[in-house]
């Protein structure tokens, strides 16, 4: 677990939350929580983002560890963005998780996890990601150092995610159609 710097706040810094709906599906950005550390962030993420079924794993990362770049920002940066030193201080190569959004369709989640690259800094990682994951074209990229990402513990998976399945009264489908009778209105 790593430090979570950020602006001082009664509720701790902001953590981005990634939820996986089922084995074999990508983790997807679903929003953020405020928490004092990664363990706290995972507990908050579970309460806020896994109150319904369709969750088997959560990741959290401090929001300030995320490099977020949209297609519009990339285009505006142009050649400058391609310069090797852009935004990076050269360091030892490390692993970065790559997330991408590629559709304007109405959605419930933002960027999807698409893979991993190794690079000397987040901007170098972004350039590597653009080469490694060219299709479909990205509308937004998130680059996150993998050492800053914390996952919900596997041994807790049943305790964390199974109860939501049993609470069928939270599902609108449990209520069927409660329309009094057919609608009077025509067409």
């Amino acid at each position, binding site marked *: 677990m790593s430090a979570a710097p950020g602006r001082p706040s009664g509720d701790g810094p902001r953590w981005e939350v990634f939820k996986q709906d089922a084995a074999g599906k990508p983790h997807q950005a*679903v929003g953020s929580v405020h928490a004092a550390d990664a363990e706290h962030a995972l507990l908050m993420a579970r309460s806020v983002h896994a109150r319904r079924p369709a969750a088997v794993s959560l990741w959290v990362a401090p929001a300030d560890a995320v490099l977020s770049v949209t297609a519009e920002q990339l285009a505006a940066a142009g050649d400058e963005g391609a310069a090797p030193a852009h935004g990076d201080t050269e360091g030892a190569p490390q692993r970065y998780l790559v997330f991408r959004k590629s559709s304007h369709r109405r959605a419930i989640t*933002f960027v999807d996890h698409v893979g991993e690259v190794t690079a000397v800094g987040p901007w170098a990682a972004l350039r590597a990601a653009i080469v490694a994951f060219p299709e479909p074209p990205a509308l937004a990229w998130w680059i996150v150092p993998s050492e800053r990402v914390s996952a919900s513990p596997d041994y807790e998976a049943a305790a964390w995610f199974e109860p939501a399945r049993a609470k069928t009264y939270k599902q609108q489908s449990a209520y069927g159609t409660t329309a009094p009778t057919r609608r*009077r209105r025509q067409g």
Partner: protein
Amino acid sequence: MADLGAESPERLAAFEARIAAGEKIEPGDWMPEAYRHQLVRMISQHAHSEVVGMLPEGAWIPRAPSLRRKLILLAKVQDEAGHGQYLYHAAETLGVHRDELIAALLEGRAKYSSVFNYPPLTWADVGMIGWLVDGAAIKNQVMLAQCSYGPYSRAMVRICAEETFHHKQGKEMVLTYARGTAHQRAMAQDALDRWWWPSLMMLGPHDSDSPNTPQLVRWGVKTKTNDQVRQEFVDEHAPELLEVGLEVPDPELRFDPADGHWHHGPIDWDEFWAVVRGDGPLNAERLEARRRAFEEGRWVREAIAAHAARREATA
């Protein structure tokens, strides 16, 4: 990163073209300051409404008439807490901090939905709130799910899926009472008498009194006006309420076969603005409850921070 620059007519035209093409604006993309400002205003008010909205129903959790109803109401109120969090997150993507927004609420500087300043007096009110208040909220939120700002739109899509449960459980309760004993029917009618007009008002002032609406519509923040959303709400709910034998407390309510819509009588906007200004039945109590919750949670926040600091020091 190149400076995306100030607001030139070209930049504004490009922004509006993106919206016209159905693109979502994402954090980091260029946006006019007025777009950002309006979104912060709308999203934070919406977040506060979810949070304050826990209070009327939360008070009924200990008095639920069965274990099933208690579980349902607990889950619903928990959902509203979650909705507040999704929305504070969406606001934070625009460069504000949740702490500032919550401070504005606690200090009485922020608005939230006027409907939560009315008291739920009986258990039938809990059902009526689910059916009408959540029903009105869904109409608004389905519209906002089309919003041009990505984070707000996504929060709305998620919230709508959960709100449908709120709406259906409330409707189920009201139908049970409406088909029950004479006493239960009377309770359902009494609840409808008190919640019908606040539900219409919560969808906001008439279009003629909403000066921001045309720009919000052009920028795809809203995709329908207050009056359009209110019409959808009345068209769905008025006939269903009548169908179960309840009387809608509006002598002028009528269906017009010519346009296919249900038309309601005049809304008492003096009452609406009085409640918005702070003179509703429970404005002071609602804020006091939020302040108390914030203070009573202080030791928890401090303990968590101390634990994290010690863990950090010994790591």
